[in-house]
């Protein structure tokens, strides 16, 4: 993969950059020489603006999809314009504004997910978060055109937030509309509530919510004495489970300071322990600790002004207790759908790996052949992708964004995730094909996603959506048995 940080004047690359950006208004950064392309902001990893667009272009282009976007898209990207500048010039501004208009139309209309055609990716409205992060990323002085673009972005943001507001403040939330809207990202302000509804934890009917929450939170509180009984009174298996959890909690999401706070670590420890003893057929399996963290992060953000710099000690204990109970129940809901990922020999993961391989053979046969030729087996490099749902490969803030989509999908974590993994693997196709076995393994253990931003996730999802549109029928025999498990488990847990 090219690690060049230099700008290019290649019109195709420039056009791709503007396409992939999807949110208008920000010029490609001119100075890409900064070696640290991630900055610590309040201790959290925030992608900075110095991106290597060339590498994204190169890897995406390997399956030809994005180049076709460029020529077939309905918006005004002009790949033949050889004079596209690398800073915000009138030329780029004009076309970007046009892109904005296209997007406005889509945002205000009732769109559903993506259509199958390759050009449809461009009609995905930018998510509110990517827009706001783009706003912050202005590189250089703000001129009139930038101001107007920013106004457009603010307008888009506003429209989208209003849609969520309208949807969620009604007396009965329409789940299908929420899924449709949530697929493309949920504004921070509405994420906690949306996730709870999407998971089936919070009733869609407003009247029932308070009573339901109170009951579930009490139910969780009532289970806590099982955790607090002294070690001697726990049976050996439970003691062993707790020990394992205690080994893993301090090394859960070590890059995010929130999860280093003792109160949050205790909270996580209790959630994992209670879940484990209540699900003895699965028990605690390493990786489940990762899956609990997005819930804690998102639900805590309901109670603090800025989750990025929240001071845990200042949060009232009853609020933390609510976060803990809600996180517990939502983790339970999530795991109910993928329980066979963690039972003995992990059949759910084995099945997903088989699906991924089958899919890749159809999508990119030469890549598949190279992997086979090098004896790089899917279980060796993609096991963790399934076990931790790509949480180890993607920066944490983007995992939150990914879950917006997964939770808006019918079987996001078990079925759609396989298509996402296929898109993820194909993204590195050129890199992989140039490597032999050891280097393939080392590369795929730490793929270069450290500087990813929302647009990369959105590209990944649109590719995954496209693959599913093409191959769903062929894969249907591999569809998870989880749907049955899901229903059974959900029924059990709704009691």
């Amino acid at each position, binding site marked *: 993969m090219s690690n060049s940080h230099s700008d290019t004047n290649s019109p195709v690359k420039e056009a791709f950059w503007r396409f992939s950006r999807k949110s208008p208004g920000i010029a490609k950064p001119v100075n890409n020489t900064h070696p640290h392309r991630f900055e610590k902001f309040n201790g959290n990893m925030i992608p900075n603006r110095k991106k290597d667009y060339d590498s994204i272009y190169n890897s995406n282009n390997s399956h030809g999809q994005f180049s076709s976007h460029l020529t077939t898209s309905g918006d005004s990207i002009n790949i033949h314009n050889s004079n596209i500048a690398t800073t915000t010039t009138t030329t780029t501004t004009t076309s970007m504004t046009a892109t904005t208009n296209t997007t406005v139309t889509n945002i205000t209309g009732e769109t559903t997910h993506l259509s199958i055609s390759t050009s449809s990716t461009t009609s995905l409205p930018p998510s509110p978060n990517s827009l706001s992060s783009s706003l912050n990323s202005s590189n250089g002085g703000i001129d009139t055109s930038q101001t107007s673009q920013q106004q457009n972005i603010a307008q888009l943001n506003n429209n989208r937030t209003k849609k969520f507001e309208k949807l969620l403040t009604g007396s009965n939330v329409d789940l299908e509309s929420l899924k449709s809207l949530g697929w493309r990202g949920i504004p921070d302000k509405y994420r906690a509530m949306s996730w709870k509804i999407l998971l089936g934890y919070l009733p869609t009917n407003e009247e029932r919510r308070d009573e339901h929450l109170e009951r579930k939170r009490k139910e969780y509180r009532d289970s806590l004495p099982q955790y607090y009984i002294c070690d001697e009174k726990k049976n050996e298996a439970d003691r062993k489970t707790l020990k394992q959890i205690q080994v893993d909690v301090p090394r859960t999401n070590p890059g995010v300071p929130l999860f280093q706070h003792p109160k949050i670590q205790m909270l996580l420890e209790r959630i994992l322990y209670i879940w484990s003893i209540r699900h003895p057929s699965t028990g605690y399996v*390493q990786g489940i600790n990762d899956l609990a963290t997005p819930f804690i992060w998102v639900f805590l953000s309901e109670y603090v002004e800025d989750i990025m710099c929240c001071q845990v000690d200042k949060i009232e204990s009853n609020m933390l207790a609510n976060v803990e109970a809600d996180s517990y129940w939502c983790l339970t809901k999530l795991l109910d759908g993928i329980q066979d990922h963690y039972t003995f020999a992990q059949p759910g993961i084995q099945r997903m790996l088989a699906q991924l391989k089958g899919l890749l053979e159809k999508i990119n046969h030469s890549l598949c052949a190279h992997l086979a030729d090098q004896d790089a087996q899917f279980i*060796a490099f993609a096991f963790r992708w399934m*076990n931790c749902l790509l949480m*180890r490969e993607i920066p944490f803030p983007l995992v939150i964004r990914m879950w917006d989509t997964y939770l808006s999908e019918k079987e996001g974590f078990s079925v759609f995730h396989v298509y996402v993994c296929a898109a993820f693997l194909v993204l590195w196709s050129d890199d992989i094909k140039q490597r032999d076995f050891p280097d393939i393994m080392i590369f795929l253990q730490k793929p270069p996603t450290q500087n990813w931003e929302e647009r990369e996730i959105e590209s990944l999802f649109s590719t995954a959506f496209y693959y599913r549109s093409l191959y769903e029928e062929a894969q249907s025999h591999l569809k998870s048995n989880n749907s049955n498990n899901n229903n059974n488990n959900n029924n059990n847990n709704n009691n």
Partner: protein
Amino acid sequence: MSKGSQEEYDYLYKIVLIGDSGVGKSNLLSRFTRNEFSLETKSTIGVEFATRTIQTEGKTIKAQVWDTAGQERYRAITSAYYRGAVGALLVYDIAKQATYKSVERWLTELRENADRNIEIMLVGNKSDLRHLREVSTDEAKEFSEKHKLTFIETSALDSSNVELAFQNILTQIYHLMSRPSHGPIISDEPPAPGVQIDPSEPSSTQGGQKSGCGMCN
């Protein structure tokens, strides 16, 4: 990151790192292969892989090291990687008695899943935690003599003995493999998923490079 590990080597040996969760296997590997250590290492899921080439007695030896998840649930996945391995570092934490107690169980694991002649080294890691020591050096030494294992104490944190541990086991493997009387280290069973290298025959993973023929004299 280099594309294609094209460096020349005389022998290619596959090593596995096993032991309870949290004893420092991943840090031993990162210290040996990249000279890195992190207090913020996430748990290993399934297996992870790294390589390093060393010199011993005028020979170039490439080690392919498979780091395995310590939790029992992953045993079904990780034990497949024992096959074809010519060496195992069985790691415990000198500051956690329980991880030392598990050593016998890990030996059974190896006997059941690994090749008969696998070279095993018992490694007491975290030797920097002197004030917290729960397993005495003598006790571990005695245990290893009884079970015919080699033994070393290491600290991935302060680097002590890490290089030596890998150097020793690779040299021992080299000696063992070079002995004319030594039988081939080949499992009777078909290769398990994920097993890339049989040291006794040229592997497809070597891309036509000089073969790591472990049986050559």
